[in-house]
């Protein structure tokens, strides 16, 4: 007589295994999605170590220095412009001149060697983002860069996923503000009713015919 190939519990084992593996698969996929949306991967909210502990909170909230004082080319170029050591020294040649925290800045200026910063907002190289058009069309600095005036150390405010960019590109009225408020860090976009924001979209000639969501617009 031939032996039984399958044990007594084989049926139960199979059914439990199928359910367990399916649940495990869903669990793994959910975990991966959660992982890649989390700050562990995106660095959103994570302040990176820098050679000098530059505080936007002090310079923007306390001293009320305009963004453009350091980020010179934001109104006319794709890059907002990272300040040269000379920009720091234009004030710090006169204030805090012996502070040890600023020694790297003074050395950089004296020796003409660049300060090496850790980049916070780094888009992939196939994304061609242009600051000047956003600033010109009424997208405020704090809309994308968060409440920078509360950050003692700078961190990414948004994960910069394409879906997040598309959210605004599909409906700019959600994030638009009057052009003269673009550099106002305390401005609340919601303070203007939606109808007026939609009017701003029309006034500033922001295209609503689909050009904003065309691949070529950003992936030239």
């Amino acid at each position, binding site marked *: 007589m031939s032996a039984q190939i399958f044990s007594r519990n084989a049926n139960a084992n199979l059914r439990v295994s199928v359910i367990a593996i399916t649940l495990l698969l869903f669990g793994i996929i959910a975990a991966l999605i959660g992982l890649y949306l989390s700050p562990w991967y995106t660095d959103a909210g994570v302040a990176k170590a820098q050679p000098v502990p530059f505080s936007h909170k002090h310079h923007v909230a306390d*001293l009320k220095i305009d963004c453009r004082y350091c980020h010179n080319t934001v109104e006319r170029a794709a890059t907002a412009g*990272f300040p040269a050591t000379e*920009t720091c020294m234009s004030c710090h040649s*006169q*204030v805090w001149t012996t502070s040890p925290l600023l020694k790297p800045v003074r050395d950089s200026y004296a020796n003409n060697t*660049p300060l090496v910063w850790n980049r916070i907002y780094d888009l992939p190289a196939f994304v061609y983002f242009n600051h000047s058009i956003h600033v010109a069309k009424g997208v405020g600095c704090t809309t994308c860069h968060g409440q920078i005036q509360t950050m003692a150390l700078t961190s990414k405010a948004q994960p910069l996923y394409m879906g997040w960019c598309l959210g605004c590109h599909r409906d700019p009225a959600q994030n638009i503000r009057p052009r003269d408020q673009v550099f106002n860090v305390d401005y609340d976009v919601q303070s203007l009713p939606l109808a007026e924001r939609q009017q701003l979209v029309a006034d500033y000639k922001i295209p609503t015919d689909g050009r904003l969501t065309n691949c070529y617009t950003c992936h030239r």
Partner: protein
Amino acid sequence: MANAAPNRTIARLVRLSWLPLLLILSACHIDMYDQPKYKPNQPSDFFQDGRAMRAPAPNTVAMNSFRPDSPLYTGKLNGELTTDLPPEIKLDANLLARGRTVFNAYCAPCHGLAGDGKGVIANRGPLVVPSYHTDRLRKMAVGYFFDVATNGINRMYGYGGRITAEDRWAVVAYVRALQLSQNADAKALPADDQAKVDAGK
């Protein structure tokens, strides 16, 4: 049966035929995130100083960015500080509005929002910033303000590298407006403003 063995081999191969699908996993790649091209401010191991952005070669300027005999770029006409706005700059409300924006962003930290030298930075350092509201500066040629804004003076750094020439002229025009604001004849005011002055407001 004669065909039993080849059938078993084929059967085994069919069972493992899903393995090549794993090659799809190689499609996940992020090598295009950092391409062999330079973005602004990136480091470079090609150049000795480590910078990818290069300073202009000595004694050169970018095309259409400078002419040595033009008051638009130098503030000087025939070697003398110019007393009028250059012909390329149109004096209108837009110019003054732009001048106010640029002044408040770049100049007000030291010079103060009213141009009286009482900016936040001036308060924090052993720094005495002159006020614009002196006879000497009220009588000074506009080209002087442009020259100082471009090249700096004493402990002030020059801002020629940070502000475009047109914006610097807007600032100059706004400084003149500031000077007028602190030194205006009350009789020259419009009627309702004059009433406020008379009422002591």
